[in-house]
């Protein structure tokens, strides 16, 4: 069933299948973080539907040949969200799922922040603010070579405190990089606290628009809405599109949701069991069966 989840060959995958995939990925993220003993659950759980939509629907890619020239590019600018990305890549077949248990261990490819030694990871990130400029460079190269590559860049909302994001935002707007699609994981929380208490980002839509971007706002856990947004972004010409995805940090685990402390700590055994039990009760498999 999961093997039939299509992406590059046409129509949309079934919603029930995508939901189940997102559920499985949440479960595996939590387990992997527990085994690692450290990491970033909050922002990994908030980005799950975004990544599932990209990797199971929108991105042209080939897990058997990660360097395939015709692929679209995805840059995880919020490199601390790598637990989410690694898990999605493993589910997609870029590398064996068993490897997820080596996350953050010496000798593992699965470094604590997104690492380009992992099949499917385009570039190592981890120092915030740097991904969008890289996405722009890829887009400029594609334009120069007359290739139809699309470049997606996932940005954390706290990350937008960094000036480089706005330098890059101006560059993409000014150069009309309509092959770039930015995605903001707007979960409202950064390491220390809520974003509106640290350095308020609002009005975020107007900031991006002022830099020349087409701005879409969606519920970042609504798979249909995300597919619509990426479809729209792909046909907007003359300017880049940013999808501001309103998400819940720690999504899916009641005691992690909207809690800044879960930005950067792993669940212990008891917390993991509680989280997995909660997930089990919310499994979309039973929803589909009903």
């Amino acid at each position, binding site marked *: 069933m999961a093997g039939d989840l299509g992406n590059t060959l046409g129509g949309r995958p079934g919603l029930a299948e995508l939901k189940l995939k997102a559920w499985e990925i949440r479960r595996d993220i939590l387990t992997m973080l527990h085994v690692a003993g450290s990491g970033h659950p909050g922002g990994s759980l908030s980005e799950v539907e975004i990544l599932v939509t990209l990797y199971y629907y929108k991105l042209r890619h080939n897990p058997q040949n990660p360097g395939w020239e015709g692929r679209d590019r995805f840059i995880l600018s919020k490199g601390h969200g790598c637990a989410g990305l690694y898990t999605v890549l493993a589910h997609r077949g870029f590398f064996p799922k068993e490897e997820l248990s080596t996350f953050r261990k010496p000798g593992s490819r699965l470094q604590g922040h997104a690492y380009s030694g992992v099949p499917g990871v385009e*570039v190592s990130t981890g120092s915030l603010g740097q991904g969008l400029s890289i996405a722009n460079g890829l887009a400029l190269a594609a334009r120069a070579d007359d290739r139809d590559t699309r470049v997606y860049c996932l940005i954390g909302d706290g990350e937008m405190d960094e000036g480089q994001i706005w330098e890059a935002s101006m560059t993409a707007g000014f150069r009309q990089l309509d092959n770039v699609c930015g995605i903001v994981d707007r979960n409202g929380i950064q390491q220390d606290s809520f974003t509106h208490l640290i350095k308020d980002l609002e009005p975020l839509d107007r900031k991006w628009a002022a830099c020349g971007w087409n701005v879409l706002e969606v519920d970042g856990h609504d798979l249909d809405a995300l597919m619509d947004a990426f479809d729209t972004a792909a046909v907007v010409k003359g300017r880049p599109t940013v999808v501001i995805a309103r998400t819940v940090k720690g999504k899916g685990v009641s005691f992690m949701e909207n809690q800044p402390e879960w930005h950067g700590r792993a669940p212990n055994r008891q917390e993991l069991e509680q989280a997995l039990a909660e997930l089990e009760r919310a499994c979309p498999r039973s929803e589909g069966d009903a």
Partner: protein
Amino acid sequence: MPEVKKASLRDGLGQGLLELGRSRSDVFVLTGDLAESTRTHLFEREFPERFLNMGIAEQDMLGTAVGLSLAGKVPFVCSFSCFICSRGYDQIRVSICYNNQNVKIVGTHGGITTGPDGATAQSLEDIAIMRALPNMTVIVPGDAIETRKATVAAASFPGPVFIRLGRPPVPVISAEEDPFEIGKARVLRTGQDVTLVACGIMVSETLHAAEELAAEGIGAGVVNMHTIKPLDEGTILKTARSTGAVVTAEEHQVHGGLGGAVAETLARKYPCHIEMVAVNDTFGESGEPEELKERYGLTWRHIRERALRLVRNKGRPHPIRPD
């Protein structure tokens, strides 16, 4: 010294980039509102579709170069050394070096001879901070011809490369037919008493010092260490063994640059007496290049003086000085 022809290293860069633009289609040039100052406007004129003026935004410029490199292009990012290396250090460290990207960084206006613009525009720490980065290659050419060759060579040299240039015209000390190989020092002169190792604009000062020393009966060898990393340890050891005394000369802080690199090698493999001609842990100030070189101890006279001190003390225990 007889009157010599002078040329700006930046002109060597401009010519090198033009050559690359004509010979290969994958070379891109980026600058941050400094097209004419970096002489990249020559490339812009001929290859506007491969030239990106990124505005006064070094961090974004470096990241954009990484994207181009990921797509197989060979981007040259050209700006004042102080801006590109200091403002962009984290981007160079993470996006470029950690990812081992094929990005070439050219810092012009390196050193104190940037002159009247003063300390904020004078880059005196760039060799040290670039040299500390894994995967990075660091080149400090000695004249305009060598700069052109280094620029062309960097395009075919895999991985991140930093080329550090100065602003004012300096004597042309090499010839078109001279070899240039990244990582291979050039022995410009041999001498049995002391070895002078220099980079950048200090190579010509060092040659001048060697001539003066020769007139005083002291044989001074001169090594043009145009590549600071990877350091040509073989040439350092060979020349140091033949003299037992080494003076380094660079237009850079005394810490962590050429002198530091040479001392690290000699301390481990052939401990001997070393003197360093460099800026002594201080910021610069406004002034004409020649005035500043005098004021901060970066002339042939300073090199000669240090060499004499070493030669006089040969065979004695290393002098312990309060300075």
